[in-house]
Protein backbone atom coordinates (compact mmCIF):
# COMPACT_ATOMS: atom_id res chain seq x y z
CA UNK A 1 0.00 0.00 0.00
CA UNK A 2 1.61 3.23 -1.14
CA UNK A 3 -0.36 5.61 1.10
CA UNK A 4 0.69 3.64 4.19
CA UNK A 5 4.34 3.94 3.16
CA UNK A 6 4.01 7.71 3.34
CA UNK A 7 1.62 7.91 6.27
CA UNK A 8 3.51 5.77 8.78
CA UNK A 9 6.69 7.88 8.70
CA UNK A 10 4.55 11.03 8.94
CA UNK A 11 2.78 9.65 12.00
CA UNK A 12 6.13 8.73 13.53
CA UNK A 13 7.58 12.16 12.76
CA UNK A 14 6.76 13.66 16.19
CA UNK A 15 8.94 10.96 17.79
CA UNK A 16 12.08 12.19 16.04
CA UNK A 17 11.46 15.91 15.66
CA UNK A 18 11.81 18.47 18.41
CA UNK A 19 9.12 21.10 18.95
CA UNK A 20 10.78 23.64 16.67
CA UNK A 21 10.89 21.30 13.69
CA UNK A 22 7.45 19.90 14.42
CA UNK A 23 5.74 23.29 14.70
CA UNK A 24 7.78 25.59 12.49
CA UNK A 25 8.40 23.15 9.66
CA UNK A 26 6.09 20.13 9.71
CA UNK A 27 2.80 21.67 10.88
CA UNK A 28 3.35 24.84 8.88
CA UNK A 29 4.07 22.86 5.71
CA UNK A 30 0.91 20.83 6.16
CA UNK A 31 -1.27 23.90 6.67
CA UNK A 32 0.28 25.76 3.75
CA UNK A 33 -0.04 22.58 1.70
CA UNK A 34 -3.76 22.29 2.42
CA UNK A 35 -4.32 25.90 1.30
CA UNK A 36 -2.20 25.35 -1.81
CA UNK A 37 -4.08 22.10 -2.47
CA UNK A 38 -7.22 24.17 -2.93
CA UNK A 39 -5.42 26.05 -5.69
CA UNK A 40 -3.84 23.06 -7.37
CA UNK A 41 -7.18 21.25 -7.28
CA UNK A 42 -8.74 24.07 -9.32
CA UNK A 43 -5.72 24.30 -11.61
CA UNK A 44 -5.57 20.56 -12.23
CA UNK A 45 -9.22 19.69 -12.65
CA UNK A 46 -10.91 22.93 -13.74
CA UNK A 47 -7.87 24.42 -15.46
CA UNK A 48 -8.27 27.73 -13.65
CA UNK A 49 -5.46 29.31 -11.66
CA UNK A 50 -7.23 31.15 -8.87
CA UNK A 51 -5.66 33.92 -6.83
CA UNK A 52 -8.61 34.07 -4.46
CA UNK A 53 -7.70 31.05 -2.32
CA UNK A 54 -6.17 33.21 0.40
CA UNK A 55 -9.47 35.09 0.47
CA UNK A 56 -11.47 31.90 1.05
CA UNK A 57 -9.00 30.76 3.71
CA UNK A 58 -9.11 34.23 5.22
CA UNK A 59 -12.91 34.21 5.44
CA UNK A 60 -12.79 30.95 7.39
CA UNK A 61 -10.00 32.28 9.60
CA UNK A 62 -11.80 35.56 10.28
CA UNK A 63 -14.97 33.63 11.15
CA UNK A 64 -13.08 31.57 13.74
CA UNK A 65 -11.50 34.72 15.15
CA UNK A 66 -14.78 36.66 15.23
CA UNK A 67 -16.79 33.88 16.86
CA UNK A 68 -14.09 32.60 19.18
CA UNK A 69 -11.86 33.76 22.01
CA UNK A 70 -9.72 36.72 20.94
CA UNK A 71 -8.03 39.57 22.74
CA UNK A 72 -9.46 42.53 20.81
CA UNK A 73 -12.99 42.34 22.19
CA UNK A 74 -14.78 42.18 18.85
CA UNK A 75 -17.27 39.52 17.90
CA UNK A 76 -19.45 36.99 19.61
CA UNK A 77 -18.23 33.90 21.41
CA UNK A 78 -19.72 30.70 20.09
CA UNK A 79 -18.81 27.13 21.01
CA UNK A 80 -16.32 25.52 18.61
CA UNK A 81 -18.82 22.99 17.34
CA UNK A 82 -20.81 25.87 15.88
CA UNK A 83 -18.00 28.19 14.81
CA UNK A 84 -15.98 25.55 12.93
CA UNK A 85 -18.84 24.35 10.69
CA UNK A 86 -19.88 27.98 10.25
CA UNK A 87 -16.37 28.94 9.13
CA UNK A 88 -16.23 26.05 6.68
CA UNK A 89 -19.68 26.91 5.37
CA UNK A 90 -18.80 30.57 4.81
CA UNK A 91 -15.60 29.53 3.02
CA UNK A 92 -17.63 27.23 0.77
CA UNK A 93 -20.17 29.97 0.08
CA UNK A 94 -17.44 32.51 -0.67
CA UNK A 95 -15.78 29.99 -2.98
CA UNK A 96 -19.06 29.43 -4.78
CA UNK A 97 -19.67 33.17 -5.13
CA UNK A 98 -16.19 33.74 -6.49
CA UNK A 99 -16.82 30.91 -8.96
CA UNK A 100 -20.07 32.56 -9.95
CA UNK A 101 -18.29 35.85 -10.61
CA UNK A 102 -15.46 34.24 -12.56
CA UNK A 103 -17.57 31.58 -14.30
CA UNK A 104 -17.35 33.00 -17.80
CA UNK A 105 -13.65 33.66 -17.63
CA UNK A 106 -10.87 31.28 -18.44
CA UNK A 107 -7.09 31.37 -18.45
CA UNK A 108 -5.55 34.75 -17.86
CA UNK A 109 -8.93 36.42 -17.54
CA UNK A 110 -9.76 34.21 -14.58
CA UNK A 111 -6.38 35.05 -13.07
CA UNK A 112 -7.07 38.76 -13.37
CA UNK A 113 -10.55 38.52 -11.91
CA UNK A 114 -9.61 36.28 -8.98
CA UNK A 115 -6.60 38.49 -8.25
CA UNK A 116 -8.83 41.56 -8.29
CA UNK A 117 -11.21 39.80 -5.89
CA UNK A 118 -8.38 38.79 -3.59
CA UNK A 119 -6.80 42.24 -3.49
CA UNK A 120 -10.18 43.95 -3.08
CA UNK A 121 -10.87 41.70 -0.09
CA UNK A 122 -7.49 42.69 1.36
CA UNK A 123 -8.32 46.40 1.08
CA UNK A 124 -11.80 45.73 2.46
CA UNK A 125 -10.50 44.01 5.61
CA UNK A 126 -8.18 46.96 6.04
CA UNK A 127 -10.96 49.54 5.76
CA UNK A 128 -13.63 47.78 7.76
CA UNK A 129 -13.49 47.85 11.52
CA UNK A 130 -16.85 46.43 12.57
CA UNK A 131 -16.25 42.94 11.19
CA UNK A 132 -12.55 42.70 10.46
CA UNK A 133 -11.07 45.20 12.93
CA UNK A 134 -9.21 46.92 10.09
CA UNK A 135 -5.44 47.02 9.79
CA UNK A 136 -4.73 45.36 13.14
CA UNK A 137 -7.21 42.50 12.82
CA UNK A 138 -7.61 39.92 15.55
CA UNK A 139 -4.96 38.70 17.94
CA UNK A 140 -5.00 36.25 20.83
CA UNK A 141 -7.09 33.77 18.86
CA UNK A 142 -6.94 30.50 20.75
CA UNK A 143 -7.49 27.02 19.41
CA UNK A 144 -10.27 25.25 21.30
CA UNK A 145 -10.03 22.36 23.71
CA UNK A 146 -11.86 19.39 22.33
CA UNK A 147 -12.63 16.59 24.77
CA UNK A 148 -10.01 17.86 27.22
CA UNK A 149 -7.32 17.93 24.53
CA UNK A 150 -6.00 21.40 23.79
CA UNK A 151 -5.29 22.02 20.11
CA UNK A 152 -2.70 24.55 21.15
CA UNK A 153 -0.42 21.66 21.99
CA UNK A 154 2.15 21.29 19.14
CA UNK A 155 1.64 17.55 18.85
CA UNK A 156 -2.16 17.82 18.78
CA UNK A 157 -2.08 20.54 16.14
CA UNK A 158 0.39 18.54 14.06
CA UNK A 159 -1.74 15.42 14.16
CA UNK A 160 -4.89 17.42 13.39
CA UNK A 161 -3.17 19.09 10.42
CA UNK A 162 -1.90 15.74 9.20
CA UNK A 163 -5.36 14.23 9.53
CA UNK A 164 -6.91 17.18 7.69
CA UNK A 165 -4.33 16.94 4.92
CA UNK A 166 -4.97 13.22 4.44
CA UNK A 167 -8.71 13.77 4.52
CA UNK A 168 -8.40 16.63 2.03
CA UNK A 169 -6.39 14.51 -0.41
CA UNK A 170 -8.86 11.65 -0.02
CA UNK A 171 -11.75 14.04 -0.60
CA UNK A 172 -10.11 15.40 -3.74
CA UNK A 173 -9.46 11.95 -5.19
CA UNK A 174 -13.00 10.86 -4.38
CA UNK A 175 -14.56 14.07 -5.67
CA UNK A 176 -12.83 13.99 -9.04
CA UNK A 177 -14.18 10.49 -9.68
CA UNK A 178 -17.74 11.42 -8.83
CA UNK A 179 -20.13 12.40 -11.65
CA UNK A 180 -19.82 16.05 -10.68
CA UNK A 181 -16.03 15.80 -10.56
CA UNK A 182 -15.99 14.22 -14.01
CA UNK A 183 -18.24 16.99 -15.33
CA UNK A 184 -15.78 19.53 -13.94
CA UNK A 185 -12.97 17.92 -15.92
CA UNK A 186 -15.20 17.81 -18.99
CA UNK A 187 -15.74 21.57 -18.63
CA UNK A 188 -11.98 21.99 -18.45
CA UNK A 189 -11.40 20.00 -21.63
CA UNK A 190 -14.34 20.97 -23.83
CA UNK A 191 -16.89 23.41 -22.44
CA UNK A 192 -18.64 23.56 -25.81
CA UNK A 193 -19.32 19.83 -25.86
CA UNK A 194 -20.58 19.88 -22.29
CA UNK A 195 -23.04 22.58 -23.29
CA UNK A 196 -24.03 20.60 -26.35
CA UNK A 197 -24.88 17.64 -24.10
CA UNK A 198 -27.36 19.89 -22.37
CA UNK A 199 -25.36 20.18 -19.16
CA UNK A 200 -25.00 23.62 -17.63
CA UNK A 201 -21.40 24.82 -17.43
CA UNK A 202 -22.10 27.14 -14.54
CA UNK A 203 -22.96 24.47 -11.95
CA UNK A 204 -19.71 22.48 -12.29
CA UNK A 205 -17.61 25.65 -12.21
CA UNK A 206 -19.36 27.00 -9.13
CA UNK A 207 -19.17 23.56 -7.50
CA UNK A 208 -15.44 23.31 -8.19
CA UNK A 209 -14.83 26.74 -6.67
CA UNK A 210 -17.05 25.91 -3.68
CA UNK A 211 -15.14 22.66 -3.12
CA UNK A 212 -11.86 24.55 -3.30
CA UNK A 213 -13.39 26.91 -0.75
CA UNK A 214 -13.90 23.93 1.58
CA UNK A 215 -10.23 22.96 1.25
CA UNK A 216 -9.00 26.53 1.61
CA UNK A 217 -11.34 27.07 4.56
CA UNK A 218 -9.99 24.01 6.37
CA UNK A 219 -6.48 25.35 5.82
CA UNK A 220 -7.57 28.80 6.94
CA UNK A 221 -8.99 27.51 10.22
CA UNK A 222 -5.83 25.56 11.00
CA UNK A 223 -3.77 28.59 10.04
CA UNK A 224 -5.57 30.97 12.39
CA UNK A 225 -5.13 28.47 15.24
CA UNK A 226 -1.48 28.08 14.30
CA UNK A 227 -0.76 31.82 14.01
CA UNK A 228 -3.13 32.75 16.88
CA UNK A 229 -3.93 35.96 14.98
CA UNK A 230 -5.33 37.12 11.68
CA UNK A 231 -5.22 40.54 10.03
CA UNK A 232 -5.40 42.14 6.62
CA UNK A 233 -1.83 40.96 6.06
CA UNK A 234 -3.06 37.35 6.29
CA UNK A 235 -5.13 37.88 3.14
CA UNK A 236 -2.86 40.38 1.34
CA UNK A 237 -0.69 39.94 -1.68
CA UNK A 238 1.98 38.18 0.42
CA UNK A 239 -0.11 35.13 1.32
CA UNK A 240 -1.82 35.15 -2.10
CA UNK A 241 1.57 34.86 -3.77
CA UNK A 242 2.88 32.39 -1.16
CA UNK A 243 0.03 29.98 -1.87
CA UNK A 244 0.60 30.39 -5.59
CA UNK A 245 4.35 29.83 -5.26
CA UNK A 246 3.80 26.69 -3.19
CA UNK A 247 1.42 25.31 -5.80
CA UNK A 248 3.72 26.23 -8.68
CA UNK A 249 6.85 24.81 -7.02
CA UNK A 250 4.98 21.59 -6.40
CA UNK A 251 3.51 21.58 -9.88
CA UNK A 252 0.04 22.54 -11.01
CA UNK A 253 -0.59 19.23 -12.76
CA UNK A 254 -1.08 17.08 -9.70
CA UNK A 255 -2.82 18.16 -6.48
CA UNK A 256 -0.46 16.30 -4.16
CA UNK A 257 2.38 18.46 -5.46
CA UNK A 258 1.07 21.21 -3.19
CA UNK A 259 2.57 19.45 -0.16
CA UNK A 260 5.94 18.99 -1.85
CA UNK A 261 5.92 22.69 -2.69
CA UNK A 262 4.92 23.58 0.87
CA UNK A 263 7.85 21.69 2.39
CA UNK A 264 10.31 23.35 0.00
CA UNK A 265 8.81 26.78 0.64
CA UNK A 266 8.80 26.42 4.44
CA UNK A 267 12.38 25.11 4.48
CA UNK A 268 13.46 28.06 2.34
CA UNK A 269 11.55 30.45 4.56
CA UNK A 270 12.96 28.99 7.76
CA UNK A 271 16.56 28.67 6.70
CA UNK A 272 16.95 31.57 4.28
CA UNK A 273 18.36 33.58 7.18
CA UNK A 274 21.46 31.42 7.03
CA UNK A 275 21.86 31.93 3.29
CA UNK A 276 20.99 35.58 2.78
CA UNK A 277 19.88 38.63 4.65
CA UNK A 278 16.50 38.02 6.27
CA UNK A 279 15.19 41.24 4.72
CA UNK A 280 15.77 39.98 1.21
CA UNK A 281 13.67 36.84 1.51
CA UNK A 282 11.23 38.16 -1.10
CA UNK A 283 14.00 38.50 -3.65
CA UNK A 284 15.06 34.92 -2.98
CA UNK A 285 11.55 33.54 -3.31
CA UNK A 286 10.98 35.63 -6.45
CA UNK A 287 14.13 34.22 -8.02
CA UNK A 288 13.07 30.68 -7.06
CA UNK A 289 9.66 31.21 -8.64
CA UNK A 290 11.22 32.67 -11.78
CA UNK A 291 13.65 29.74 -12.07
CA UNK A 292 10.85 27.21 -11.61
CA UNK A 293 8.74 28.95 -14.25
CA UNK A 294 11.66 29.08 -16.69
CA UNK A 295 13.27 25.69 -16.06
CA UNK A 296 10.46 23.45 -14.82
CA UNK A 297 7.01 24.86 -15.59
CA UNK A 298 5.52 21.53 -14.43
CA UNK A 299 6.99 22.07 -10.96
CA UNK A 300 9.22 19.85 -8.85
CA UNK A 301 6.70 17.04 -8.95
CA UNK A 302 6.85 16.93 -12.75
CA UNK A 303 10.64 17.22 -12.66
CA UNK A 304 10.84 14.28 -10.28
CA UNK A 305 8.52 12.05 -12.27
CA UNK A 306 10.45 12.90 -15.45
CA UNK A 307 13.65 11.77 -13.76
CA UNK A 308 12.04 8.59 -12.49
CA UNK A 309 10.73 7.83 -15.96
CA UNK A 310 14.16 8.45 -17.45
CA UNK A 311 15.85 6.18 -14.90
CA UNK A 312 13.36 3.41 -15.45
CA UNK A 313 13.40 3.32 -19.23
CA UNK A 314 16.73 4.57 -20.52
CA UNK A 315 16.41 2.50 -23.71
CA UNK A 316 13.10 4.13 -24.63
CA UNK A 317 14.72 7.52 -24.20
CA UNK A 318 17.53 6.58 -26.60
CA UNK A 319 15.11 5.31 -29.21
CA UNK A 320 13.07 8.46 -29.11
CA UNK A 321 16.11 10.65 -29.64
CA UNK A 322 17.06 8.84 -32.86
Amino acid at each position, binding site marked *: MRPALILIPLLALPLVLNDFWLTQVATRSLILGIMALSLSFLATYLGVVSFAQATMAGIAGYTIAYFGPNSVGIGVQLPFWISIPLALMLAVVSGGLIGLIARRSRGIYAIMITLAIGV*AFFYFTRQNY*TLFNGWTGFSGVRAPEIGGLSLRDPLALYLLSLGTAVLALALVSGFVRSPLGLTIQAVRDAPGRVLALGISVTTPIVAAFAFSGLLAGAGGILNVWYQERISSFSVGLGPIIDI*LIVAVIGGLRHPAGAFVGAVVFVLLDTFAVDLIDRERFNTLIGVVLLLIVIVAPGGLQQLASDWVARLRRPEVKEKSTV
Partner: protein
Amino acid sequence: MTLFLIVTLNGLTLAALYFLAASGFSLIFGLMRTVNMAHGALLMLGGYVGYSIVDATGSWGLGVVGGGLAAALAGAIVQAGVLGWMQGDELRQTLASIAISIIMADLMLWHWGGLTYQVELPEALAGGQRLPVLGVGYANIRLALMAFALATGLALWFLIQRTRFGAVIRAGVDDQDMLRALGYPINRIFVLVFALGGMLAGMAGVVAASALSIAPGTDLQFLLSSLVVVIVGGMGSIGGAALGALLVGLAEQYGLAYAPTYGVVFTFAIMVLVLAVRPQGLLGKAEL
Protein backbone atom coordinates in the same frame (compact mmCIF):
# COMPACT_ATOMS: atom_id res chain seq x y z
CA MET B 1 -22.53 70.82 -2.66
CA THR B 2 -18.92 71.89 -2.18
CA LEU B 3 -18.10 68.47 -0.77
CA PHE B 4 -19.72 66.83 -3.76
CA LEU B 5 -17.74 68.98 -6.19
CA ILE B 6 -14.47 68.35 -4.39
CA VAL B 7 -15.15 64.62 -4.25
CA THR B 8 -15.98 64.63 -7.95
CA LEU B 9 -12.75 66.47 -8.74
CA ASN B 10 -10.81 64.03 -6.56
CA GLY B 11 -12.48 61.19 -8.42
CA LEU B 12 -11.44 62.69 -11.75
CA THR B 13 -7.87 63.10 -10.48
CA LEU B 14 -7.76 59.48 -9.46
CA ALA B 15 -9.36 58.48 -12.76
CA ALA B 16 -6.62 60.36 -14.61
CA LEU B 17 -3.94 58.45 -12.68
CA TYR B 18 -5.70 55.14 -13.17
CA PHE B 19 -6.00 55.82 -16.88
CA LEU B 20 -2.29 56.57 -17.19
CA ALA B 21 -1.46 53.34 -15.37
CA ALA B 22 -4.04 51.15 -17.07
CA SER B 23 -3.48 52.37 -20.64
CA GLY B 24 0.00 50.84 -20.72
CA PHE B 25 -1.27 47.64 -19.13
CA SER B 26 -4.10 47.45 -21.64
CA LEU B 27 -1.83 48.22 -24.60
CA ILE B 28 0.52 45.38 -23.68
CA PHE B 29 -2.35 43.00 -23.09
CA GLY B 30 -4.08 43.95 -26.34
CA LEU B 31 -1.09 43.22 -28.52
CA MET B 32 0.71 40.40 -26.74
CA ARG B 33 -1.97 38.75 -24.60
CA THR B 34 0.49 39.19 -21.75
CA VAL B 35 -0.93 40.00 -18.34
CA ASN B 36 1.98 42.03 -17.08
CA MET B 37 1.75 41.60 -13.33
CA ALA B 38 4.93 43.66 -13.02
CA HIS B 39 3.08 46.73 -14.27
CA GLY B 40 2.61 48.13 -10.77
CA ALA B 41 6.30 47.58 -10.06
CA LEU B 42 7.22 49.44 -13.26
CA LEU B 43 5.02 52.32 -12.15
CA MET B 44 6.66 52.38 -8.75
CA LEU B 45 10.13 52.25 -10.30
CA GLY B 46 9.24 55.28 -12.43
CA GLY B 47 7.99 57.10 -9.36
CA TYR B 48 11.11 56.41 -7.31
CA VAL B 49 13.52 57.25 -10.12
CA GLY B 50 11.55 60.42 -10.83
CA TYR B 51 11.75 61.36 -7.17
CA SER B 52 15.52 60.85 -7.10
CA ILE B 53 16.01 62.89 -10.29
CA VAL B 54 13.87 65.77 -9.04
CA ASP B 55 15.67 65.60 -5.72
CA ALA B 56 19.06 65.83 -7.44
CA THR B 57 18.35 68.28 -10.26
CA GLY B 58 15.34 70.22 -9.04
CA SER B 59 13.67 69.91 -12.44
CA TRP B 60 10.22 68.34 -12.34
CA GLY B 61 9.96 67.89 -16.12
CA LEU B 62 13.26 66.03 -16.14
CA GLY B 63 11.95 63.81 -13.35
CA VAL B 64 8.84 62.82 -15.31
CA VAL B 65 10.84 62.04 -18.45
CA GLY B 66 13.54 60.23 -16.48
CA GLY B 67 11.04 58.13 -14.52
CA GLY B 68 9.26 57.25 -17.74
CA LEU B 69 12.50 56.26 -19.48
CA ALA B 70 13.68 54.16 -16.53
CA ALA B 71 10.42 52.21 -16.50
CA ALA B 72 10.50 51.92 -20.32
CA LEU B 73 13.98 50.43 -20.14
CA ALA B 74 12.95 48.04 -17.36
CA GLY B 75 9.87 47.03 -19.37
CA ALA B 76 11.95 46.38 -22.48
CA ILE B 77 14.38 44.26 -20.45
CA VAL B 78 11.52 42.26 -18.91
CA GLN B 79 10.03 41.49 -22.34
CA ALA B 80 13.32 40.88 -24.17
CA GLY B 81 14.95 39.01 -21.30
CA VAL B 82 12.18 36.86 -19.86
CA LEU B 83 8.63 37.12 -21.15
CA GLY B 84 9.60 37.08 -24.84
CA TRP B 85 10.96 33.57 -24.44
CA MET B 86 7.59 32.25 -23.32
CA GLN B 87 5.45 33.99 -25.93
CA GLY B 88 2.17 32.15 -26.34
CA ASP B 89 2.29 30.45 -22.94
CA GLU B 90 0.19 32.99 -21.10
CA LEU B 91 0.06 31.29 -17.71
CA ARG B 92 3.84 30.97 -17.64
CA GLN B 93 4.24 34.62 -18.60
CA THR B 94 1.85 35.68 -15.87
CA LEU B 95 3.73 33.66 -13.25
CA ALA B 96 7.08 34.94 -14.48
CA SER B 97 5.89 38.54 -14.36
CA ILE B 98 4.67 37.97 -10.80
CA ALA B 99 8.13 36.70 -9.88
CA ILE B 100 9.68 39.77 -11.52
CA SER B 101 7.34 42.11 -9.68
CA ILE B 102 8.19 40.48 -6.32
CA ILE B 103 11.91 40.84 -7.03
CA MET B 104 11.56 44.43 -8.26
CA ALA B 105 9.45 45.51 -5.28
CA ASP B 106 11.92 43.97 -2.85
CA LEU B 107 14.95 45.54 -4.52
CA MET B 108 13.23 48.94 -4.54
CA LEU B 109 12.47 48.54 -0.85
CA TRP B 110 16.13 47.79 -0.34
CA HIS B 111 17.33 50.87 -2.22
CA TRP B 112 14.73 53.46 -1.29
CA GLY B 113 13.65 52.08 2.08
CA GLY B 114 10.16 51.98 3.49
CA LEU B 115 9.68 55.75 3.56
CA THR B 116 6.86 57.65 1.92
CA TYR B 117 8.13 60.07 -0.70
CA GLN B 118 6.48 62.99 -2.35
CA VAL B 119 8.05 64.60 -5.38
CA GLU B 120 8.64 68.30 -4.89
CA LEU B 121 6.48 70.37 -7.19
CA PRO B 122 7.73 73.14 -9.47
CA GLU B 123 6.56 76.62 -8.60
CA ALA B 124 3.92 76.78 -11.34
CA LEU B 125 2.22 73.61 -10.10
CA ALA B 126 2.37 74.25 -6.37
CA GLY B 127 -0.52 76.01 -4.72
CA GLY B 128 -4.12 76.07 -5.88
CA GLN B 129 -6.64 77.77 -8.12
CA ARG B 130 -10.16 79.00 -7.54
CA LEU B 131 -12.05 77.36 -10.37
CA PRO B 132 -14.38 79.57 -12.39
CA VAL B 133 -18.03 78.44 -12.69
CA LEU B 134 -17.71 75.74 -10.01
CA GLY B 135 -16.52 78.18 -7.37
CA VAL B 136 -14.25 75.78 -5.46
CA GLY B 137 -10.54 75.92 -4.89
CA TYR B 138 -8.39 73.05 -6.18
CA ALA B 139 -4.72 72.11 -6.25
CA ASN B 140 -2.83 73.05 -9.42
CA ILE B 141 -0.96 69.76 -9.62
CA ARG B 142 -4.20 67.83 -9.71
CA LEU B 143 -5.58 69.98 -12.51
CA ALA B 144 -2.29 69.55 -14.36
CA LEU B 145 -2.56 65.81 -13.82
CA MET B 146 -5.96 65.71 -15.50
CA ALA B 147 -4.64 67.76 -18.40
CA PHE B 148 -1.64 65.44 -18.62
CA ALA B 149 -3.84 62.34 -18.74
CA LEU B 150 -6.03 63.93 -21.39
CA ALA B 151 -2.99 64.87 -23.50
CA THR B 152 -1.50 61.39 -23.07
CA GLY B 153 -4.78 59.78 -24.07
CA LEU B 154 -4.99 61.91 -27.20
CA ALA B 155 -1.34 61.27 -28.08
CA LEU B 156 -1.88 57.55 -27.62
CA TRP B 157 -4.97 57.65 -29.79
CA PHE B 158 -3.05 59.54 -32.48
CA LEU B 159 -0.13 57.10 -32.28
CA ILE B 160 -2.34 54.06 -32.61
CA GLN B 161 -4.91 55.32 -35.10
CA ARG B 162 -2.90 57.69 -37.30
CA THR B 163 0.70 56.54 -37.53
CA ARG B 164 2.38 53.69 -39.35
CA PHE B 165 3.69 52.19 -36.09
CA GLY B 166 0.15 52.32 -34.73
CA ALA B 167 -1.14 50.52 -37.80
CA VAL B 168 1.42 47.77 -37.22
CA ILE B 169 0.27 47.46 -33.59
CA ARG B 170 -3.37 47.27 -34.63
CA ALA B 171 -2.54 44.66 -37.24
CA GLY B 172 -0.69 42.69 -34.56
CA VAL B 173 -3.71 42.80 -32.29
CA ASP B 174 -5.91 41.39 -35.04
CA ASP B 175 -3.64 38.82 -36.62
CA GLN B 176 -0.18 38.22 -35.27
CA ASP B 177 0.73 35.38 -37.61
CA MET B 178 -0.13 37.42 -40.69
CA LEU B 179 1.99 40.29 -39.45
CA ARG B 180 4.88 37.91 -38.93
CA ALA B 181 4.36 36.41 -42.36
CA LEU B 182 4.53 39.89 -43.89
CA GLY B 183 8.04 40.14 -42.52
CA TYR B 184 7.56 42.52 -39.64
CA PRO B 185 10.04 41.90 -36.82
CA ILE B 186 7.33 41.01 -34.35
CA ASN B 187 9.67 40.36 -31.44
CA ARG B 188 11.17 43.81 -31.76
CA ILE B 189 7.69 45.33 -31.96
CA PHE B 190 6.74 43.48 -28.79
CA VAL B 191 9.76 44.90 -26.98
CA LEU B 192 8.93 48.40 -28.24
CA VAL B 193 5.32 48.17 -27.13
CA PHE B 194 6.42 46.84 -23.77
CA ALA B 195 8.76 49.83 -23.48
CA LEU B 196 5.92 52.16 -24.44
CA GLY B 197 3.66 50.60 -21.79
CA GLY B 198 6.48 50.87 -19.26
CA MET B 199 7.02 54.51 -20.23
CA LEU B 200 3.33 55.29 -19.59
CA ALA B 201 3.51 53.48 -16.25
CA GLY B 202 6.73 55.22 -15.26
CA MET B 203 5.38 58.68 -16.05
CA ALA B 204 2.19 57.83 -14.19
CA GLY B 205 4.39 56.84 -11.26
CA VAL B 206 6.16 60.20 -11.15
CA VAL B 207 2.88 62.09 -11.49
CA ALA B 208 1.30 59.91 -8.79
CA ALA B 209 4.28 60.58 -6.54
CA SER B 210 3.78 64.32 -7.12
CA ALA B 211 0.02 64.59 -6.74
CA LEU B 212 -0.23 61.95 -3.99
CA SER B 213 2.82 60.14 -2.66
CA ILE B 214 4.74 56.94 -3.21
CA ALA B 215 5.66 54.18 -0.75
CA PRO B 216 5.97 50.38 -0.74
CA GLY B 217 2.49 49.11 -1.61
CA THR B 218 1.90 51.71 -4.30
CA ASP B 219 2.68 49.01 -6.85
CA LEU B 220 -0.13 46.79 -5.55
CA GLN B 221 -2.59 49.68 -5.44
CA PHE B 222 -2.00 50.51 -9.09
CA LEU B 223 -1.84 46.88 -10.18
CA LEU B 224 -5.29 46.35 -8.66
CA SER B 225 -6.68 49.51 -10.21
CA SER B 226 -5.21 48.60 -13.60
CA LEU B 227 -6.74 45.13 -13.39
CA VAL B 228 -10.17 46.42 -12.45
CA VAL B 229 -10.02 49.22 -15.01
CA VAL B 230 -9.25 46.89 -17.90
CA ILE B 231 -11.75 44.28 -16.69
CA VAL B 232 -14.44 46.96 -16.55
CA GLY B 233 -13.42 48.89 -19.66
CA GLY B 234 -12.44 45.97 -21.85
CA MET B 235 -9.02 44.45 -22.44
CA GLY B 236 -6.78 46.07 -24.99
CA SER B 237 -8.97 49.09 -25.65
CA ILE B 238 -7.63 52.56 -24.87
CA GLY B 239 -11.13 54.05 -24.87
CA GLY B 240 -12.19 51.27 -22.54
CA ALA B 241 -9.31 52.10 -20.23
CA ALA B 242 -10.48 55.72 -20.12
CA LEU B 243 -14.08 54.76 -19.41
CA GLY B 244 -13.08 52.14 -16.84
CA ALA B 245 -10.72 54.56 -15.10
CA LEU B 246 -13.44 57.18 -14.92
CA LEU B 247 -15.94 54.76 -13.38
CA VAL B 248 -13.49 53.24 -10.92
CA GLY B 249 -11.90 56.55 -9.90
CA LEU B 250 -15.25 58.22 -9.24
CA ALA B 251 -16.70 55.18 -7.46
CA GLU B 252 -13.68 54.97 -5.20
CA GLN B 253 -13.84 58.64 -4.18
CA TYR B 254 -17.62 58.72 -3.69
CA GLY B 255 -17.29 55.52 -1.69
CA LEU B 256 -14.57 57.01 0.49
CA ALA B 257 -16.56 60.19 1.07
CA TYR B 258 -19.98 58.75 1.72
CA ALA B 259 -19.30 55.23 3.07
CA PRO B 260 -15.74 55.38 4.40
CA THR B 261 -15.33 51.82 5.59
CA TYR B 262 -16.93 50.24 2.56
CA GLY B 263 -15.18 52.24 -0.19
CA VAL B 264 -13.61 49.24 -1.94
CA VAL B 265 -16.97 47.52 -2.14
CA PHE B 266 -18.14 50.07 -4.72
CA THR B 267 -15.19 49.38 -7.00
CA PHE B 268 -15.75 45.70 -6.56
CA ALA B 269 -19.49 45.97 -7.23
CA ILE B 270 -18.86 47.77 -10.51
CA MET B 271 -16.51 45.00 -11.59
CA VAL B 272 -18.96 42.24 -10.68
CA LEU B 273 -21.83 44.05 -12.39
CA VAL B 274 -19.88 44.53 -15.61
CA LEU B 275 -18.73 40.90 -15.56
CA ALA B 276 -22.30 39.73 -15.12
CA VAL B 277 -23.68 41.83 -17.97
CA ARG B 278 -20.74 42.13 -20.35
CA PRO B 279 -17.93 39.70 -19.52
CA GLN B 280 -15.63 41.17 -22.18
CA GLY B 281 -15.78 44.64 -20.59
CA LEU B 282 -17.78 47.69 -21.60
CA LEU B 283 -15.83 48.50 -24.76
CA GLY B 284 -14.03 45.19 -25.20
CA LYS B 285 -14.35 42.87 -28.16
CA ALA B 286 -15.77 39.44 -27.40
CA GLU B 287 -13.23 36.63 -27.48
CA LEU B 288 -13.74 33.47 -29.53
